[in-house]
């Protein structure tokens, strides 16, 4: 057979791959590819215990990435989410300590108050970001870099640079390692949040306006949309998601530290970008962000299991991110 003729089944497969790539992007291929690769390399990878592990590990990144996504949709960027995780954890820890210190029996009251304070702390930082971006007109990169830097200092001074320990076991069980219908609280929370964010972005005016503001802020203003409010909301939402992650982080690790979660700032951006969220605003799907976050966790987990050195892991993560962006460029060209 001559080289020029491609057999029909192969041709079909090629068309299918092409169609899938144009419509779904590169993420499904990366996911399937890495599952196959690690599954063949290491049998433990596909064990239920390990998959459960991946799910558990990906929850924090998913929550933060969903907040980051909303900011990215408005053509912004939130670098402070990692610092918020630490800060909200510290606030939660301190509130728990002080309430239980005064009255060790007040657990039922201490937990909701501490959780609320943690989330509010995140929202407070988010509103500072939003104020700077929406009202003062500071570029999002600089504004959130600034709050990130200050926030780490604030958290460190709250704790005198030491981790807050002695988080009550009951708290850790309730929000950390306990089970509800056999499933971890963090997974429940992530699932519920995913549904809520999907509803927000697809079924509400506020959600639609996030897209419109990021797609064309002038056109949104001329269409009677309160763009300042939308930008403020985006950063407050992102802060709330990161704050909640801080609360859960403390429950999982049992200690609150200023530098907890500092990796999440860039990882959340990476999860969004791999999930096809445009850095220029106005486009992205929350489903793909979820998959993006799971993929990053999966990749790390697989490399851990196959004992890839941590330095090499970093190199691979970086390369995959670049690959995803290049693929997205190619896809945009194929679309037009």
């Amino acid at each position: 057979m001559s080289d020029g003729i491609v057999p029909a089944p192969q041709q079909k497969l090629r068309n299918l791959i092409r169609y899938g790539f144009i419509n779904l992007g590169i993420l499904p291929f990366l996911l399937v590819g890495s599952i196959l690769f690690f599954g063949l390399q290491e049998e433990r990878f596909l064990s239920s215990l390990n998959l459960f592990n991946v799910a558990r590990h990906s929850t924090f990144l998913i929550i933060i990435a969903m907040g980051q996504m909303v900011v990215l949709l408005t053509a912004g960027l939130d670098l402070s989410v990692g610092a918020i995780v630490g800060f909200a954890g510290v606030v939660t820890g301190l509130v728990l300590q002080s309430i239980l210190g005064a009255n060790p029996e007040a657990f039922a009251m201490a937990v909701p108050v501490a959780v609320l304070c943690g989330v509010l702390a995140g929202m407070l930082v988010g509103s500072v970001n939003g104020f700077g971006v929406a009202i003062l007109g500071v570029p999002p990169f600089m504004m959130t870099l600034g709050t990130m830097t200050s926030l780490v200092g604030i958290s460190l001074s709250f704790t005198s640079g030491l981790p807050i320990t002695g988080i009550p076991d009951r708290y850790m069980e309730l929000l950390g390692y306990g089970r509800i219908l056999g499933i971890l609280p963090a997974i429940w929370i992530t699932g519920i949040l995913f549904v809520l964010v999907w509803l927000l972005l697809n079924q509400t005016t506020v959600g639609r306006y996030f897209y419109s503001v990021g797609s064309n802020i002038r056109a949104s203003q001329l269409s009677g949309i309160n763009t300042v409010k939308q930008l403020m909301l985006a950063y407050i939402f992102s802060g709330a998601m990161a704050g909640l992650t801080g609360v859960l982080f403390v429950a999982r690790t049992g200690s609150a530290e200023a530098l907890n979660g500092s990796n999440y700032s860039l990882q959340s951006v990476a999860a969004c970008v791999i999930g096809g969220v445009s850095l220029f605003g106005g486009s992205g799907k929350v489903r793909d962000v979820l998959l993006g976050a799971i993929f990053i966790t999966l990749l790390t987990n697989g490399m851990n299991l196959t004992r890839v050195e941590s330095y090499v892991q970093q190199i691979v993560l970086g390369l995959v991110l670049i690959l995803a962006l290049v693929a997205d460029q190619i896809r945009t060209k194929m679309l037009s």
Partner: protein
Amino acid sequence: MPPERGNELTTTTIQTEQKTNSAMPELILRVQGVSKRYGSVTALKDMQFELRPGEVHVLFGENGAGKSTLINVISGAIRPNEGTLHVAGKPVDFHSVHDARAHGIAAMFQEFSLAPHLSVEENVFLGSEPSAGIWLKRGERRRLVQEAMAQFGFELDSQKQVIHLTRAQAQMVEMTKALMVKPRILILDEPTASLSQRETEAMFELVYKLRAQGVGIIYITHRIKEIEEIGDRVTVMRDGMYIDTVDVATSSHDTLVELMTGRSFESFYPDIKHEPGDVRLKIHELASQSGGVQHCSLEVRAREIVGLAGLVGCGKSRIGRAVFGLEKVASGEITVNGEKITQATPRKMLAKGVAYVTSDRHKEGLMLARSTKENLTLTSLSQPNLSSKGWLKTRQEKTFAQSLGERMGVKPLALTKPVSAYSGGNQQKVLIGKSLAREANVIIFDEPTVGVDVGARVEVYQFLKELAEAGAAIVIISSDMPEVLNMSHRLYVVRDGMIVDSMDKADIDETRVLQGFFGTEDTQLQNNLEGARHE
């Protein structure tokens, strides 16, 4: 035979043709039979033009007459489909601006090509820096720039960043850059558009000096006064075609305006009934903070189309933008449906029943990457028919977008495709549909047919007619003369941010409108307005 004296309308074409035959080398530039087509649109058709050394030859014509295309051909920026160019008697074929430069042709465009953060001297030599190997010769560069500027009479700090210069100073830099190559032919595109009186005089001085040195100058301007002051000959263009070349010394204002007008009015303007009802929009002595609008008063009634005509940049669109809250108001009153408006914002004005269709659909009209459906419904998403308590009614949204798209005649209507995939005409229909998706009885159209093909134009005009006859009060702000002349029941002429003339449908006359544009024969009217203001 010498042409008859006293007949000012006699063209000099015959004369010049005789001259070219006998003294061919005297021409420094000759353009013959040049055409340029973009798809089905003809921008330039069988154009001719000639330039002698040491003359200022003015190109005159309305917006869109083809002046820019012609100078782009001469400066090598675009290649014509047909026709020939001769420079100093030799045929040339420019492939780039660089080619044209090598033949001694330099152009100074309205839009500056300066790097804002570089210094004056860096800009002048950008791309052709004096150097030894990889090392810049900074000293030599400075000396050359300063020498040149001294020669032209520019007083400028050559080390200053361009971003810190005034527009006039930036223009001097652009000019220095153009003159560094010692051109034989210099193209100036509205060089005084943003200059003050004094700066204009300085610019003229320089042009005189260059003319005396034998440089041939192609000068584009919209100002008749300027033509008289600086021009030797004028070539008038209309609809991409050569109309005539006349000597400035023997031509009057009227001759020029007559040459420029006299177009056939296209027949596709619908006949719109005029039965004016209540006053919907009233503006009294409006002035904007930017100073772009001054002492502006007008009113628009129901079932009426009011036109605002004026040159590009005369401030006519600022009037519309001020009503919609896009331009800060310094003083004066805006009344909509009998209600006085203070602190207008687009949000508020939409709620009051005012719609505004922007002239820049890419920058502030459409979300190009989003779907047609989302674009069509964006303005009315907050209304009870499409959402309740912040929850979208997605099914209603889809049917709403479907019917709106059909009503606007978007073809083919693909609700889920990004709106960027559409042509200009369809995009404009989406923009208009989107802006009118909410109940509105005062509708402001800023350049309603900009970048729109003829077919879509007819549909837009038909739509305007339907809106007006259904009771809307419509304002059309347009730089397209035939459009604003033919669509308006009443017309206001705007110049320098002021309303300088107004006329009813029966009195609308192109010559009168143009005189308003250029401020030639309306001194009496202006005096009246001044007088009224001081009372």
